[in-house]
């Protein structure tokens, strides 16, 4: 009994220390507005309020292909990848809600691949892992000790260093693919799971209600994408009046699948991401919805962030 009480006390103190140190490590303004758990789970909450113009929501295809800092450097648009590995559309909906709530962006870009990911195919541990990530404030921010040591006595957040990659995952590995011509024209259409269709309807409604333009995009992936999926998405999203841009059909990007993929055509690597980010920036420019902030004094943390981002590239 005495040992059981000791164990409970030990765990109690541990959780108190966890909360205390989490508060120290997390962006404090966001913690104040959204609480520790939510701030730790959604990286976008580490960004200064209402500074992001475009939020890209999706799975690993997004955080491998979209480097917001490359787009910032070339076009001056503020983009953020709100992407997680193997994201389900029900989670995408939450990411969209958090993004809109905290940033009021002009545009949300949703990766089409999440529409085909069936929750039924996820392993039993998926929900548990998600739950654990959500309640582990250290997952995304523990490395902030480096920044906090420098700004120990500072009350306000300095957003320069919080996340210079803005959700992008910098990976330079390269593994070529032997596959060719993966976007062979076809009339086949791949059906979207019904549950995903319902979540998509909710996302469309939520964006309309909040006056945010929603666009569905497909990032280049030889392994994941094909024409049947393209057709399925095109027909489905057009029925809601939503734009669909399939970058797999954009020959101008010119991905070299021998050197610009990290895993045999599944995801792009850093080299591929540079090309794709350039193409995405060009597309955003054409929409006329976003503006160049590079000379705006309110966005100087992005210029400083870009400098650190460049230093971080090996």
């Amino acid at each position, binding site marked *: 009994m005495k040992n059981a009480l000791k164990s409970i006390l030990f765990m109690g103190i541990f959780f108190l220390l966890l909360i205390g140190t989490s508060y120290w490590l997390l962006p404090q303004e966001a913690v104040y507005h959204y609480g520790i758990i939510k701030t730790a789970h959604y990286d976008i909450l580490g960004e200064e309020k209402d500074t992001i113009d475009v939020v890209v929501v999706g799975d690993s295809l997004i955080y491998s292909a979209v480097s917001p800092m490359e787009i910032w450097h070339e076009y001056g648009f503020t983009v953020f990848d709100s992407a997680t590995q193997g994201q389900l559309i029900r989670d995408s909906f939450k990411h969209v809600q958090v993004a809109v709530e905290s940033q009021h962006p002009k545009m949300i870009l949703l990766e089409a691949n999440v529409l085909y990911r069936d929750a039924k195919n996820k392993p039993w541990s998926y929900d548990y892992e998600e739950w654990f990530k959500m309640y582990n404030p250290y997952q995304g921010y*523990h490395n902030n000790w480096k920044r906090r*040591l420098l700004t120990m006595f500072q009350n306000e957040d300095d957003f320069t260093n919080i996340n210079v*990659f803005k959700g992008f995952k910098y990976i330079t590995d390269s593994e070529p693919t032997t596959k060719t011509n993966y976007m062979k024209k076809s009339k086949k259409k791949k059906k979207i799971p019904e549950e995903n269709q319902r979540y998509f309807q909710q996302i469309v409604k939520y964006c309309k209600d909040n006056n945010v333009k929603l666009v569905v995009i497909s990032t280049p992936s030889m392994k994941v994408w094909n024409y049947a999926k393209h057709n399925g998405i095109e027909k489905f999203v057009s029925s809601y009046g939503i734009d669909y841009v399939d970058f797999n059909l954009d020959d101008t990007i010119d991905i070299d699948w021998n050197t610009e993929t990290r895993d045999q055509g599944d995801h792009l690597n850093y080299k591929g991401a540079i090309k794709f980010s350039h193409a995405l920036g060009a597309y955003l420019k054409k929409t006329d919805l976003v503006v160049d902030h590079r000379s705006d004094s309110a966005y100087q943390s992005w210029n400083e962030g870009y400098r650190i981002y460049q230093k971080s590239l090996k």
Partner: protein
Amino acid sequence: MSYFNVLYAFVALPILVALYNIVPKKIRPILLLLASYAFFFSYSKFLIVFVMLSSLSIYLAGRKMSSLESKKKEKLEGLEKEEKKAVKETYQKNKRNVLVFTIIFNAFFLFIFKYLGFFVKNTNHLVSFFGGNNFLPIIKLAAPIGISFYTLQAISYLVDIYREKIEAEKKLLKVMLYLSFFPTVVEGPITRYGDIKDTIYEGTRVTYQNFCFGYQRILFGFFKKMVIADRLNIFVKIIFTDYMSYSGPAIFLGAIFYTILLYMEFSGTMDVVIGSAEMFGITLPENFRQPFFSKNISEFWSRWHISLGQWFKDYIFYPVSLSKPVKKLTTGIKKTFGNRVSSLTMGGIALFAVWSLNGLWHGAGYQYLFFGYYHFTLILLGNIFEPWIVAFCTKAHINRKSIPYRIFQTVKTCILVFIGELFFRADGLRAGFSMMKRILTDFQFHHIGREIASLGLDIKDYIVLAIALLFVLGISILRERRIPIREKISKKPLVLRWTLYYVLIFAILIFGAYGKGYVPVAPIYADF
């Protein structure tokens, strides 16, 4: 499920401990077996059938050898001396046949999963000299996790029964648990049936002290892996992938960091493994004993991956050195060249066999064979030159027990180890030599500061590394002096003890190299 997965250490393990204490004593080994099979399945799915087959084969072979032994004893009663000899020989031969057949059966799976690709590649290469093209199809097979470890355990079980060191187990379940015990199945230590059978099937209740001690050991393992090994991985990965862009000193630093990384990863895993087993009152053998304090390569290998070294000693070194052909050869040499040359030859032949197999055990590749022969050469040269070194030191009045001389020996050994590990990690033998060439010819020390800064770690990372390494060094010194650290801490006041634990836990949580921007080291030895 990795040992460093939170799901393993802080969810599955406590649940298992709780269940273990709830169920009746008799059921506890069954519970451990079920947990072990679930753990194995989480890694290798249906390849679990191979560990089951191995268990069944050694169980049946053990029973057969045991029954042959009983029959032999029955037959021997009332026989004359000459008849006894003939009966003994017949039964010994039958036992040997069972032993050899079962070893081949188990080694066959190891060959198929681990060496077939290497064999096919080399055969095709050889055939291509004669104009053939892709003579054999290249097959890529996923191996059952820990096959290199449990196969060695299976062989030791059989040989120990054959040598009558242990009795064949009567219950299949116990043999199944011995081969698949979840803490040891992925990366060892390679246990002997005789050493763990008393505790593994005992079903002793988990005590509060065992639970706490187990978790302390697990946390120390997490610290080594997540704060040190995973952080060093950033540096090492860049150097070994792109060594052509770096100077000799930076590459040598990469070799040092890789050796430290390997030690922290493997010994950290052993801490988690031994700590996990300790909770259930099961004492596993230590696999490391402060290897970087060794004074020569031979001593290093008696402190690094101890269970593998012991296995090779008992099942390869002694059988080879005591085999008839070797004995015959060394007797002849003894007559002509004397005792010393004879014993060096005998040891040399056995060492050659040990290090050939040791190299291949680590992987099917020429760099692993080279790694084996590199250590074979160093140990053999050490044995040959030892008397001359002793004579030289005596003549030069060098005290071999003095601190400076011992430091010199330790540094020399470490440098030799770093070189060996460089070849071990390099992407093939050619890359290894190329890196060595740069180390020996490219002394651009003026670049080193800039290079170190460009290898993915910043000054704060280096400070964390330095403090963490000093902490591990301190623990190592205490262990070398045989000071029971955990027992000592447990006698300190509660506030001090708990402060220490919280510092360790939060050091891992805050300074661990996990999450964004970090790629954790994959379990290196699990692939062997």
